[in-house]
C-alpha cells in the first residue's frame, strides 16, 4: 500500500525526468501522460483497497492516507491525466507556430510533472506542517507554468500569483503554528502534535481561543490558494496567462488541494469548537466568493478570465456547502468537487483549442466555433451548460444536493440567495460562450477550420480528453456509481 502511495506521487514525475534529460518536448509529453495513467490506476487501486481498512499511516504520520485523501487523490489524478494528454497537442501546436521555443516546452513539462507530483504528495501527508511545505512548493512549481510564455503580461501574472499565494500560505503557516500551540496541553510527541488524526481525535482538548484563531488563519491562508474572495485576485490573471492545460491544472487540481487543506482544519475546528463558528466563517467567505465570481462574470472579455471567475464561484459554492454541513452538505461538497474538477478541466482544454485556432483569448474575437470546428464548439457549449449546473450534468445534481442541505440545515434565505446568484451566473456565462459557439465564423475565424495540429494523432490528443471528460460529467449527472457513493460516504465519515 505504501508502494502504491509512492507510485501515485512518482507517476507525473516521468514527464519531468524525461524533459530534464533532454528529450524532445512531445516525447516528454507522452512520458508525462503515461505517468499520469500510472498515477490514476494506482489511485483507483489504493481507493478500492483502502475502503474497508483503517487509514494508511507510516513514518510517524508524515504519510497518512484515509478515504478522504483517496477521494482527492482520485480527483487530482483524473484531472492530471486529462491535462497531461491535452498538453501534448496544445504544446506541440504552440511550438509549431513558433510561439514557444523548444526550451520553453521542455521547461513546461519539467514543471508540469513537478507541480502535479507535489500536489499529490500534499494529499498524502497527515502532518499539517508538511502539508504547508508541499502546498507552498507546488505554488512555486506552478508559478513557472504561469510565467512560461515570458511576455510582460504572463510575467506580471506569475509575479502576482507567486507573491499573493506565498503571502497567503505564510498566513496559513501562522495558523498551523497556533494549532500546534493549542495542542500544547496534550502530552504528545512534537511530531504528533501536528499530525491530523491525533489532533482530530483530541480536538476537544485543544485550547479553544487558539484553535479559533488557527482555523480563521488557515481559511484565510489556504483560501488564498482556493481563490476565496477577497483573496482571489491572483486567480483570473494566472488562469488567463497560463497555457490552457496548465490553467486546467490550476483550476481543477490546485484549488481543490487548497480546499482539502481547509477541510482538514475544518474537521478539527468542528470537533473542538462546535458547529457555529466554522459555519459562519465558511458561509461568509463562500457567499462572498460566489457573489464576486458571478458579478465579474457579467463582464464580457477574455474567455479564460470568465472561466476563472467561474472557478471562484464554484469554490465559493463548495465553501458554502461545507458551511451548511451535515451529511447532505458534505456529500454535496465532495461530489461538487469532483464534478467541477472534471467539467472545468474540459472547459479550459477546449478553450485552449479555441485559442489556438482563433489566435485570441478575447470572447469578442471568437464566433461560429460550432460551424468551424463542430467538436470543439459542441464541447464548449455543452461544457458551459455542465459548469453552470444545468441538468442532466453532474453539477446539477451536486448543486441540488447543496441547496437541499441549505434548506435542511440553515435558514431558507441562504439557499434561495444562492439560487438567485446561480441564475445570474447562468445568464452571464451562457451569453458569452453561446456567442462564441454560434454565429458565422468571420474574419480570421474562417481560417480556424484549418487544424493547428501537425498530425492526426495530435488532433486526437486534443479531442479525447475533452470528450471523455464531458462524458464523465454527463454520466455523473444521471448515475452515481455505487462505488463512488461508497467512497463519498466513507470520506464523509472521516470528518464526522
Amino acid at each position, binding site marked *: 500500500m505504501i508502494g502504491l502511495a509512492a507510485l501515485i506521487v512518482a507517476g507525473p514525475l516521468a514527464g519531468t525526468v524525461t524533459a530534464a534529460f533532454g528529450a524532445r518536448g512531445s516525447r516528454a509529453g507522452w512520458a508525462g501522460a503515461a505517468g499520469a495513467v500510472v498515477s490514476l490506476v494506482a489511485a483507483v487501486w489504493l481507493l478500492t483497497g483502502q475502503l474497508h481498512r483503517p487509514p494508511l499511516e507510516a513514518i510517524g504520520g508524515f504519510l497518512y492516507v484515509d478515504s478522504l485523501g483517496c477521494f482527492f487523490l482520485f480527483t487530482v489524478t483524473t484531472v492530471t491525466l486529462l491535462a497531461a494528454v491535452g498538453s501534448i497537442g496544445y504544446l506541440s501546436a504552440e511550438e509549431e507556430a513558433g510561439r514557444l521555443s523548444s526550451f520553453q516546452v521542455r521547461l513546461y513539462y519539467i514543471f508540469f510533472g513537478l507541480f502535479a507530483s507535489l500536489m499529490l504528495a500534499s494529499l498524502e501527508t497527515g*502532518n499539517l*506542517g508538511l502539508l504547508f511545505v508541499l502546498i*507552498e512548493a507546488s505554488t512555486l512549481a506552478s508559478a513557472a507554468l504561469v510565467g512560461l510564455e515570458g511576455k510582460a503580461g504572463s510575467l506580471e501574472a506569475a*509575479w502576482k500569483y*507567486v507573491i499573493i499565494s506565498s*503571502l497567503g500560505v505564510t498566513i496559513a503557516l501562522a495558523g498551523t503554528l497556533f494549532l500546534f500551540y493549542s495542542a500544547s496541553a496534550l502530552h504528545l510527541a512534537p511530531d504528533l502534535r501536528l499530525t491530523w488524526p491525533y489532533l482530530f481525535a483530541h480536538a476537544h482538548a485543544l485550547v479553544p481561543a487558539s484553535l479559533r484563531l488557527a482555523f480563521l488563519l488557515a481559511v484565510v491562508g489556504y483560501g488564498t490558494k482556493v481563490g476565496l474572495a477577497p483573496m482571489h485576485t491572483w486567480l483570473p490573471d494566472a488562469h488567463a496567462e497560463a497555457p490552457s492545460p496548465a490553467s486546467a491544472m490550476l483550476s481543477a487540481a490546485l484549488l481543490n488541494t487548497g480546499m482539502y487543506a481547509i477541510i482538514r482544519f475544518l474537521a478539527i475546528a468542528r470537533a473542538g469548537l462546535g458547529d457555529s463558528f466554522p459555519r459562519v466563517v465558511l458561509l461568509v467567505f463562500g457567499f462572498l466568493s460566489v457573489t464576486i465570481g458571478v458579478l465579474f462574470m457579467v463582464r464580457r472579455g477574455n474567455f479564460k478570465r470568465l472561466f476563472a471567475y467561474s472557478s471562484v464561484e464554484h469554490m465559493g459554492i463548495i465553501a458554502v456547502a461545507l458551511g451548511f454541513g451535515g451529511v447532505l452538505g458534505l456529500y454535496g461538497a465532495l461530489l461538487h468537487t469532483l464534478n467541477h474538477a472534471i467539467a472545468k478541466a474540459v472547459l479550459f482544454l477546449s478553450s485552449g483549442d479555441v485559442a489556438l485556432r482563433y489566435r485570441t483569448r478575447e470572447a469578442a474575437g471568437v464566433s461560429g466555433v460550432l460551424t468551424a470546428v463542430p467538436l470543439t464548439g459542441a464541447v464548449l457549449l455543452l461544457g458551459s451548460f455542465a459548469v453552470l449546473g444545468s441538468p442532466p450534468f453532474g453539477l446539477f445534481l451536486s448543486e441540488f444536493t447543496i441547496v437541499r442541505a441549505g434548506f435542511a440545515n440553515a435558514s431558507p434565505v441562504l439557499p434561495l440567495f444562492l439560487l438567485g446568484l446561480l441564475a445570474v451566473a447562468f445568464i452571464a456565462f451562457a451569453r458569452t460562450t453561446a456567442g462564441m459557439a454560434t454565429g458565422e465564423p468571420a474574419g480570421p475565424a474562417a481560417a480556424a477550420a484549418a487544424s493547428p495540429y501537425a498530425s492526426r494523432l495530435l488532433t486526437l490528443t486534443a479531442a479525447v480528453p475533452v470528450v471523455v471528460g464531458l462524458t464523465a460529467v454527463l454520466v455523473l449527472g444521471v448515475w452515481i456509481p455505487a462505488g463512488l457513493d461508497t467512497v463519498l460516504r466513507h470520506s464523509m465519515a472521516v470528518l464526522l
Partner: protein
Amino acid sequence: MQSLSATSVAGVLLDLSGVLILLLAFACLASKLFNRYVAYYGAQSVVLSFAAGVAAYAFRSPELWILAIATLAIKGIAIPVAARRLLIRRLELKRDAALSTGLSTSLIAGGALTAFAYLVTRPQLLPHGVVAAAVVPLSTAVILLGALAMVVRRHTVAQLIGWLIVENGVFLGAITLVATFPFIVEAGIFLDLVAGVLIMVVFVSGLTRELASASAGDLRELQG
C-alpha cells in the same frame, strides 16, 4: 509544554529581540530607499537569528542551533547580498517612487496595526508570565507590518522585501511559541523560502527587462 518565563535571562533577551525586530520593521516601512529596505531586512534577520540562538540555548535543542545558523547565513547574509547584487545594483534601483500612500500615513497605519495585534493576541490566548505572551503580539505586529509594506508599495522588489518581513514575523512567533516544532517541517519551510526568493528574483528581473525592452522598442519605432 516547555516555555520560558518572562523574567529569566533568556526570556528577557527574546523579548528584547522581538522589540528590535518590530522596530526594524517600522524602520523599513518608514524608508524610501531600496538600499535601506535591504539593510533593515538584513539587520532584522540577524536579530532573529540571535533570538533563535537564545531559544536554542534555553531549550538545549541542537535543531534550533542549526536553524539559528541557517537564519544568519541565508536570511541575514545570503539574501541581502543577493538582493543587492542581482536586483538593486543591476536594475539601478535607488528611490522607491511607487508608494500608494505617504510615509506618515503608512506609519500611522502601522501603529494602528500594532495596537490591533496586541488587541487580538494578548488577552485570551496566552498565560501570563510566559515570554510568549510578550513576543507573540510583537510577531503578529511584524506580520501585519510586512503585509502593510506589501500593500503600500507597488514596486516588485519592495513587495518581495515585505513578504520576507512577514516570513520573519512568523518565524519569530514560531521560535517563542512552539520551540519544539518538528525540525523536518522547519527545514522544509526554509527550503521553500529559498526557492521562493529565487523564483521571485527571476520574475522581478525578467519583468523589469521585459518592460525596459518594450519601452526601448517603442523608441526605435518612432525614429523612422
